[in-house]
């Protein structure tokens, strides 16, 4: 119909869909799911890092970590607000998170076992997130694209701080260097898995899903393209750090102009997504209990607001 045509005209011209524009239901649903998952990832992602705030090894690092976790909460807020432009409330989205209907990035189902994990998360996980998100600054949905601009800037800063935190370790004592290498060993493949399953045509549903998203301009590159970008960016940084990426296949391929590397264990990825990760239960239990414990506070705030709105009207 006419409204569909208007929508497709904007998409085809690489323009921006805005909240009040007409859009197909499937587009809206897809966006809601994607933005919600992104928002959920920001707030669940606070847990593995928040785990080290009280134990940070210097006041400077404690301040950097506090600021970073604060940013993530802020990103979560911002993204829920952006999703609300699509007509779905934060409460609804949180309810879908808590009931397990919506997911968050599986990377946060791994534990932070040492301080070096904080550096590794900044360097690798934020690095992968940025690789995923920079193309989304050109996403077809205006509010999401603009959110991505802002968030990517802050995440680049986080990535740099993560890298520096690891650099301090690799230039430090033998124990610190070992800690850094151990963190890289544990976080490397989970980070590669952040780009999702491979682009094999055999997995048709996923491929179709990706294709549709790319047609709509809410995905700009395939999973494997993004994964390659990430490895190409990260491998030389590991050299600067003096750390060894735990992949015997990893080497520069002059012909391709890219690094060759081994894929992560996608079976593990699917297992972790479907609940069988080291921290799935812990992360959800923590999140749900914080939400439940805070219910009386939110109720009080609503009651207060209602009373005073009434009072003003009287």
């Amino acid at each position, binding site marked *: 119909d006419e409204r569909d045509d208007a929508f497709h005209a904007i998409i085809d011209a690489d323009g921006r869909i805005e909240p009040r524009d007409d859009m197909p239901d499937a587009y809206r649903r897809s966006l809601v799911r994607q933005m919600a998952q992104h928002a959920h990832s920001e707030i669940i992602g606070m847990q593995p890092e928040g785990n080290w705030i009280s134990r940070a090894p210097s006041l400077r690092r404690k301040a950097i970590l506090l600021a970073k976790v604060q940013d993530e909460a802020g990103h979560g807020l911002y993204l829920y607000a952006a999703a609300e432009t699509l007509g779905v409330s934060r409460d609804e989205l949180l309810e879908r998170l808590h009931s397990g209907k919506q997911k968050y990035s599986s990377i946060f189902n791994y534990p932070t076992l040492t301080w070096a994990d904080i550096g590794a998360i900044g360097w690798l996980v934020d690095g992968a997130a940025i690789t995923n998100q920079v193309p989304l600054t050109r996403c077809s949905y205006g509010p999401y694209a603009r959110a991505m601009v802002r968030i990517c800037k802050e995440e680049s800063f986080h990535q740099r701080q993560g890298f520096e935190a690891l650099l301090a370790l690799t230039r430090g004592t033998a124990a610190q260097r070992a800690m850094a290498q151990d963190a890289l060993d544990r976080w490397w493949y989970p980070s590669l898995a952040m780009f999702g399953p491979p682009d094999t045509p055999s997995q048709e549903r996923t491929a179709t899903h990706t294709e549709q998203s790319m047609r709509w301009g809410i995905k700009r590159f395939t999973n494997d393209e993004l994964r390659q970008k990430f490895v190409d960016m990260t491998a030389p940084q590991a050299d600067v750090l003096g750390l060894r990426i735990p992949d015997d296949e990893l080497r520069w391929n002059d012909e391709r102009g890219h690094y060759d590397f081994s894929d992560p264990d996608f079976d593990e990825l699917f297992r972790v997504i479907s609940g069988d990760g080291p921290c799935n239960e812990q992360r959800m239990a923590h999140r749900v209990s914080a939400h439940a*414990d805070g219910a009386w*506070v939110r109720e009080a705030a609503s009651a207060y607001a209602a009373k005073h709105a009434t009072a003003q009207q009287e």
Partner: protein
Amino acid sequence: VSGLVEYTLRLGDDALILSQRLGEWITRAPQLEEDVALANIALDLLGQARSLLTYAGEAEGAGRDEDALAYWRDERDFRNVLLVERPNGDFAETMARQLWFTSYQYELYDRLRASADPTLAAVAAKAVKEVAYHRDHAAQWVLRLGDGTDESRRRMQGGLAAVAPYVDELFDPDGVTGGLGAVAVDPAALREPSERHVDGVLDRAGLERPPEPAHVARGGRRGLHTEVMGYLLAEMQHLHRSHEGASW
């Protein structure tokens, strides 16, 4: 230890330990806005603590930097009031603590801007603006909880009672501040304006001042802490102490 070092450590330790406690709220706050707000306040306090501990180390002249003072002093050498080391309790108790502490700290920094010590004056001038926000944040929540639901009112009243034994120590005068003349602010002088602010908030919230507690807890300024302090320090210091001499 000179009076100036001692005084600066008091200010710095109050900020550091409260920052540590507020940081524990992150990922556990009642709503996302509060994760942001409490992280923000914790970060402001940590910034103040870093400036103050750095300055205390310089004034001491023994080569101790902010980390040496934060990570290598033992419980008996920490100078914070007991109020800031209290476990967070529920959100109402944390807000009761925030209401009192920010009221005190605001009045303190407001006067310390005129300190004869230029560093303390500069730290205070910057911090007082931050604390104005913290104080407002606490007041807003005490209002909402006091004038929200029956449960929130009951909890808020409980929070006020729980922190009551720890309020007086904020305003204890002693020889250290007295001996510093125009460098320091007499804590006793902060009682009246702080109480006035707190009473004003409680009035607006329809809350009652809790009854006088059976015991008034003090001792933090002399390093006599409560039993929770050792656990807080063990968690805070363990990693740093495990790698003596390392840089991070």
